[in-house]
């Protein structure tokens, strides 16, 4: 599963399993190695085991089996406060009875750092998140975004090498969330820290990460950089979970030169790239992104198979048009195309011939 193939990582999960009730496994055989300085996102639906992994790394949960290593040292027996891992919580967890400055000074104080050095570090950390001058406020007097910055500064002020973030932007509105995504990303680049980030928001994962681990059912479904994850999903769960996706069920007709011919259940023939299908005769789910579907003949490769479609709905989205088509008996095939100058607007009821480059359609397992 580990595509990058480094022998030893800064953070390593080695055959880690976790069970809460002794009956079911929440995390099944997790193996993961991440190099220093990486921004890794654990992405998955709720209950997929991603937060449990984070909590095991932070030390608030113990692994039922297996070993977690930090910089080569097993940390299973190390209590949370000795791990030196910074953590940002979902609801920020700023101490309400302390001022912002006291919150930031807390990790320094428990480490026995002198007052003068403490004040200097707190000042620098506040500058870093552009919150200088807010040191005397209480957390309750700050807005959500400001609290988020303080929580970030507090997790970084004692200069940990590894920082964990548990859905830190979940409570913010969309605009603020997007701005904070870039700020966190820039801090990561500037400080050279290693970040493990948990989220269920796939656009957040794609924007920020060096690599994304897609979790489902206690297992990593795919661990890859964002572009690979989006363009070359390894199985139908990943394809469906990341971004929007059209799915066409069928059976492999033939596989030749990295190209598969798929006979859809309704009889049409289409081209796809085989990913995790066995061979001719196997059931498959062909997955294709809405923005890779073409309807203008000059955009469709000459040798590719095409398929007839009927326009059901046309939605104006500003920068793009979104059309819902009836394709191969299914009513929810989406095609998205750019709102370029002179672009044709399709009318409901219109019949079009659609096609795509075989590399963009992926023949995946039938779940």
């Amino acid at each position: 599963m580990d595509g990058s193939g480094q022998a030893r990582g800064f953070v390593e999960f080695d055959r880690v399993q976790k069970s809460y009730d002794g009956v079911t496994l929440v995390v099944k055989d997790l193996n993961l190695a991440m190099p220093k300085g990486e921004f890794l996102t654990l992405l998955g639906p709720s209950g997929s085991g991603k937060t449990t992994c984070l909590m095991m790394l932070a030390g608030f949960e113990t692994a039922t089996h297996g070993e977690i290593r930090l910089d080569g040292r097993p940390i299973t027996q190390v209590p949370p406060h000795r791990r030196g891992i910074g953590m940002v919580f979902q609801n920020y967890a700023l101490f309400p009875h302390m001022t912002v400055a006291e919150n930031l000074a807390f990790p320094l104080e428990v480490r026995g750092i002198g007052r003068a050095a403490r004040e200097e570090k707190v000042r620098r950390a506040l500058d870093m998140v552009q919150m200088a001058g807010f040191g005397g406020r209480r957390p309750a007097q700050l807005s959500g975004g400001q609290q988020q910055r303080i929580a970030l500064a507090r997790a970084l002020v004692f200069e940990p090498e590894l920082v964990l973030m548990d859905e830190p932007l979940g409570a913010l509105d969309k605009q603020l969330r997007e701005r904070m995504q870039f700020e966190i990303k820039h801090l990561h680049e500037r400080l050279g820290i290693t970040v493990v980030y948990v989220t269920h928001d796939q656009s957040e994962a794609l924007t920020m990460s060096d690599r994304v681990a897609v979790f489902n059912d206690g297992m990593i479904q795919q661990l890859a950089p964002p572009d690979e994850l989006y363009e070359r999903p390894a199985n139908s769960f990943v394809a469906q979970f990341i971004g929007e996706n059209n799915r066409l069920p069928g059976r492999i007709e033939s596989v030749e030169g990295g190209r598969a011919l798929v006979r859809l259940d309704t009889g049409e023939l289409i081209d796809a790239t085989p990913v995790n299908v066995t061979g001719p005769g196997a059931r498959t789910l062909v997955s294709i992104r809405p923005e890779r579907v073409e309807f203008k003949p000059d955009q469709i490769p000459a040798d590719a198979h095409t398929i007839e479609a009927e326009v059901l709905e046309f939605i104006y989205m500003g920068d793009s048009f979104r059309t819902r088509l009836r394709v191969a008996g299914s009513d929810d095939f989406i095609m998205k195309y750019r709102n370029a100058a002179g672009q044709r607007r399709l009318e409901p009821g219109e019949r079009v011939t659609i096609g795509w480059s075989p590399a963009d359609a992926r023949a995946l397992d039938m779940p």
Partner: protein
Amino acid sequence: MAQSEASSPGPETAGALTTADGRPLAAALARASARARRRAFLLVLPLLAFILVTFVLPIGQMLLRSVHNDAFPRNMPALTAWFSANPRGTEPGEDAFAALAADLKGLRANRTAGEVGTRVNYEFSGTRSLFTATARNAEALAPPYREALLAADPAWGDPRLWAVMRDASRAITPNFYLAALDRARDETGAVVRAPPERRIYVLLFERTFLVAGVITALTLLLGYPVAHLLATLPLRWSNLLMIFVLLPFWTSLLVRTTAWIVLLQGQGVVNNVLVALGIVPDSGRLSLIYNQTGTIIAMTHILLPFMILPLYSVMRPIPPSYTRAARSLGASSWTAFRRIYFPLTLPGIAAGGLLVFILAVGYYITPALVGGASGQLISNLIAFHMSSSLNWSLAAALAAILLAAVLLLYWLYDRLIGIDNLKLG
């Protein structure tokens, strides 16, 4: 509305803001909200009247009674007049005894000798019978009154009696407060401490506050972990635990106290178990009840829920992520508790502490049943003066001192912690 806003230059012009038709905004607002305020006031009126009649008036009357007693001036007008005409230290002469004799005849006629005797007896015990006996034969008194009265009872010549009667002749008197603080006036009117064998009230106040303090500390010590457990256990278990905490509330106070008697008495369950285990010899059974220990044990148990519930209500909304954040930031579990969790529970500790302390200071039935002699608290003495010795003025003075002490504590609490931080649930 829209048109008038657009056409009139009104609202945004310089100076005081006005409404669209030119009235001052503040006045318009007051008028608009007056109706709502009136309705709100009418809604609370019944409760206000109820509190006034059942709470404010009785307490006011009690406070008045602690400084006001007119039994003497009302029934002894002649002697009262003589006292106000002659300054303190004047030797009572024939005119004084004549006034006394006239008043005694009045007492006989009105059958009020007991009332006056009781009033004087409050401050000089043994004098009630002096008044009733002399008044009974008052008709036979003839001049010279001094000799006649001294012949009837030589106690009439006692200068202390005359000093006490002079004090009693004034309806408004601080003497009940003096008595409540183990003080009295001597013949010259100076304030002196009561004789040692009669000093009980200050000791009892001290004991009451000490016992209440010990009980508050014990309930906090026992209740804090329970409240924490209640706040952190899964709902299914915490509900069960909550029932155990509340169970005592559903049992009569009398039953609970009696149960402690069964457990703690000399031949009771606890002593029998200790003897059976050989921890305590049969001859040295512990005296756990009918003393201060019994009062403390039983009251700690009875007041425990009043500590647990405010603590629980403060602990429940504290998210576990605070402690986790502290731990991840490098604090050991003890430091995380001391610096983060404990300060966040302070409002609950303060509320529970205040509640338990105030309840304990005024507690009556449990110390009365299990306190014996050394476990009596000030409220037991107040009850004694209310129902047995019938010295309501002294009872009122004691109660007023207790009230003042509690108010003082409340004020201190407000200064130190702030009453806004109080969280009772």
